[in-house]
């Protein structure tokens, strides 16, 4: 590989600058003073970053949120979100410095020479227009080709990207195709005007693992066949390892390390990169089954609209005291509905719900304060799970006041102790949620649940919105707290890597039914049922050949495809 790397460098030197499609040198991007949170001083978002992408190559940009990945990606199109500006360095595309281009010049460039694929395809499409109109729009606007030619090329691209019914899918509206399909249509849109460079901004982050693998394979194959250059932005090293030739690791707007994919994942030089590579290293030995269930669900059926739509059918599970039960499945499998039933927000149609041996009232309003206290919940999106107008002290202190009637100094003392337990200091008490980072927010939500001294905490995808390193910290904290406070977790997730780091037992759900359940060692080891195998094989692994192997060995097509 190192030989191949050397060779291609020589080849490149041979063709000289003709191969250099995008060259960014000493890029510096700042947010103007009035927009920055602190006020007064302009904040530097990207500092002294240089990179170059040659034709037909893919550069992966990786880092946590706030690392400046998307900012660099957009800067290569001469765009700054929310008034941020390029204040230093140069961005040269096809031999032209885009910083010197006028607005009209930039418009000519965008959509023709450089295209952009956004993270949330659902939000990036116009819901009122048909897919085909949106896919060919850029090509028509720049006069690259006639409408008939552009549509013919779009159909070829749909085929290449593995979309079902490629001849007719263009006539559908965005809401008529699934999330994974929409993401591929967006890739087709980017490829349709035959650009030289495509910027992919976390194109698979919002997708299920089983869908991600298809989109990823489709993007990579299309890239190879059309030989355009690309910048691929993600926070998941295992994902970028599948598509990128080179990887740049960013942190806080600065470059940490740059190298070939193989070098970064096998021989990382910097400590930060090493931490990223070793991210799934939590070893959690499975606790022996104790046969003292805290929560037992039997023959549970639930749904909406007077029983016409059943989301859960005949679900049974048992959560042991101070254990972690992971509920795994893709979106639409009924995981979150199960959480709503357990919390009492959605009374079930039939089935029983037992808490500590006693039947738990089905409706929220019928439950006693003490029953409510013992069952707490942590949400996926920490930023909307906290009232933006309340301070951390109010957020954490309220359950203490509400359940235990403790006020004043004693309450403040308990808040400080909880903040200490979640590894934040007591100086956080006076902050508002907007003054916290994503990981800190989730920690505050954990503290709020903890304040009630619960016996069960339902964790609904608590780490899926976080960066790998941050979510690792959250998982370690949850395990630590379980040891200290003897809390049982009902851990809802789609991420099997998380499951193996935290769970004692696992329930796999598919279309509202339990397809497999048991101890972790039993569920995650063969012999598998087809669905569990599909899920397991779809989790990206940190080696370059994983994608091909996973695609080749599949026995079942994912539901969300």
């Amino acid at each position, binding site marked *: 590989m190192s030989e191949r790397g050397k060779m291609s460098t020589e080849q490149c030197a041979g063709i000289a600058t003709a191969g250099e499609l995008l060259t960014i040198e000493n890029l510096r991007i700042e947010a103007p003073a009035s927009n920055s949170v602190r006020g007064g001083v302009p904040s530097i978002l990207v500092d002294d970053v240089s990179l170059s992408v040659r034709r037909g190559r893919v550069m992966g940009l990786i880092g946590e949120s706030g690392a400046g990945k998307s900012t660099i990606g957009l800067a290569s199109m001469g765009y700054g979100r929310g008034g941020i500006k390029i204040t230093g360095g140069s961005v040269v595309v096809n031999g032209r410095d885009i910083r010197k281009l006028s607005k009209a010049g930039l418009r000519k460039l965008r959509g023709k020479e450089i295209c952009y694929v956004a993270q949330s395809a659902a939000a990036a499409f116009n819901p009122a227009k048909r897919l085909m109109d949106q896919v060919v729009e850029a090509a028509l606007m720049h006069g690259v080709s006639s409408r008939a030619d552009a549509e013919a090329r779009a159909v070829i691209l749909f085929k290449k990207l593995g979309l079902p019914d490629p001849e007719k899918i263009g006539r559908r509206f965005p809401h008529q195709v699934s999330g994974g399909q929409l993401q591929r249509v967006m890739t087709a849109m980017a490829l349709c005007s035959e650009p030289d460079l495509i910027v992919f901004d976390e194109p698979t982050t919002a997708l299920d693992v089983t869908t991600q693998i298809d989109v990823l394979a489709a993007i990579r194959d299309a890239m190879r066949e059309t030989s355009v250059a690309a910048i691929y932005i993600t926070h998941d090293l295992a994902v970028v390892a599948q598509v990128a030739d080179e990887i740049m690791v960013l942190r806080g707007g600065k470059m940490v390390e740059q190298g070939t994919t193989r070098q970064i994942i096998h021989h990382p030089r910097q400590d930060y990169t090493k931490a990223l590579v070793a991210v799934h290293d939590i070893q959690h030995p499975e606790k022996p089954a104790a046969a003292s269930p805290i929560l037992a669900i039997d023959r549970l059926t639930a749904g909406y609209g007077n029983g016409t739509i059943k989301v859960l059918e005949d679900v049974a599970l048992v959560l042991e005291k101070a254990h972690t039960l992971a509920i795994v499945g893709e979106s639409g499998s009924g995981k979150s509905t199960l959480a709503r039933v357990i919390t009492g*927000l959605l009374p079930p149609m039939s089935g029983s719900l037992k808490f500590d041996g006693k039947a738990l009232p089905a409706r929220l309003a019928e439950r006693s304060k003490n029953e*409510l206290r013992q069952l707490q919940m942590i949400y996926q999106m920490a930023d*909307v*799970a906290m*009232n*933006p*107008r*309340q301070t951390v002290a109010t957020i954490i202190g309220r*359950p203490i006041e*509400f359940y235990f009637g403790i006020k004043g100094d004693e309450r403040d003392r308990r808040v400080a102790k909880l903040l200490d337990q979640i590894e934040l200091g007591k100086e956080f008490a006076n902050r508002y949620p907007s003054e916290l980072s994503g990981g800190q927010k989730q920690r505050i939500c954990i503290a709020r649940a903890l304040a009630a001294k619960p016996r069960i905490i339902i964790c609904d995808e608590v780490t899926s919105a976080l960066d790998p390193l941050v979510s690792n910290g959250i998982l370690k904290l949850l395990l630590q707290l379980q040891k200290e406070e003897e809390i049982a977790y009902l851990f809802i997730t789609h991420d099997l890597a998380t499951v193996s780091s935290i769970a004692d037992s696992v329930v796999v759900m598919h279309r509202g039914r339990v397809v497999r359940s048991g101890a972790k060692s039993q569920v995650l080891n063969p012999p598998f049922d087809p669905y569990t195998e599909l899920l397991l094989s779809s989790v990206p692994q940190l080696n370059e050949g994983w994608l091909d192997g996973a695609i080749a060995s599949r026995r079942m097509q994912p539901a969300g495809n």
Partner: protein
Amino acid sequence: MIKLRDIPLSAKFGIIVIIMYVLTAIFAAQLAPYGEADIVATPFEAWSSQFWLGTDNLGRDMFTRLLFGARNTLGIAFVTTVIAFALGATGGLVAATFGGWTDQILSRFVDVLMSIPQLIFALLLLSIFGISIPSLILVIAVLDSTRVYRLTRAVAINVTVFDYVEASRLRGEGAIWIMTREILPNIVPTLIAEFGLRFCFVFLLISGLSFLGLGIQPPTADWGSMVRDSATLITYGDVTPLLPAAAIALLAVAINLVVDWFLHRASGLKDD
């Protein structure tokens, strides 16, 4: 929190005008050269050093009545708007928090009230309950609270879908806590902006009713009835009757300038 130099010029102008109106309303008795209802000269005197803006149809000093008019019209409009907001915002929050039947009953009742043109409905109710300042205030407040209800319900429902409201429900919090601590703080900016606009409308409605003879009754000075009383002068090319109207217009413009700025800030829009 808000720096003085960050306020745009238009909003600064609006704030200064509003402050001047408020000061005039408070110190009307001290500033006015004569008593509110005193007949000090012959009717329709011209502008002079003794009667700065002349006299009206009964020979009362125009300038004095303009100052007292600020106190009466502004005071009544303010009290009315406060009551309208208390009623409307409470109803809207209750509808958003409980939903279901509560929401249906409240909303349909409000729909019925809103289906009748406001001015005609106000005339009708005033002729039933008689024309006094308390009934004027209550009738306009109830009619105006329907608009406040609609707005509050709409913005509050947007807030109730957030996880933090669900989290407080799961905690077992009562409706009062959810309404006042979880929802209200998040919709206050919108309500404050709406308060400014509603105040303008109430103020215009009162002036309109007064002009029609159903609002504030003589001898209490009021800008609406002042326009009517001296309206004949317009035919002689005298601008005096337009002065109370101009006072109304200036205040309406000033309030809207401030509200625009406030809404702009609250919505987080950026000039781009």
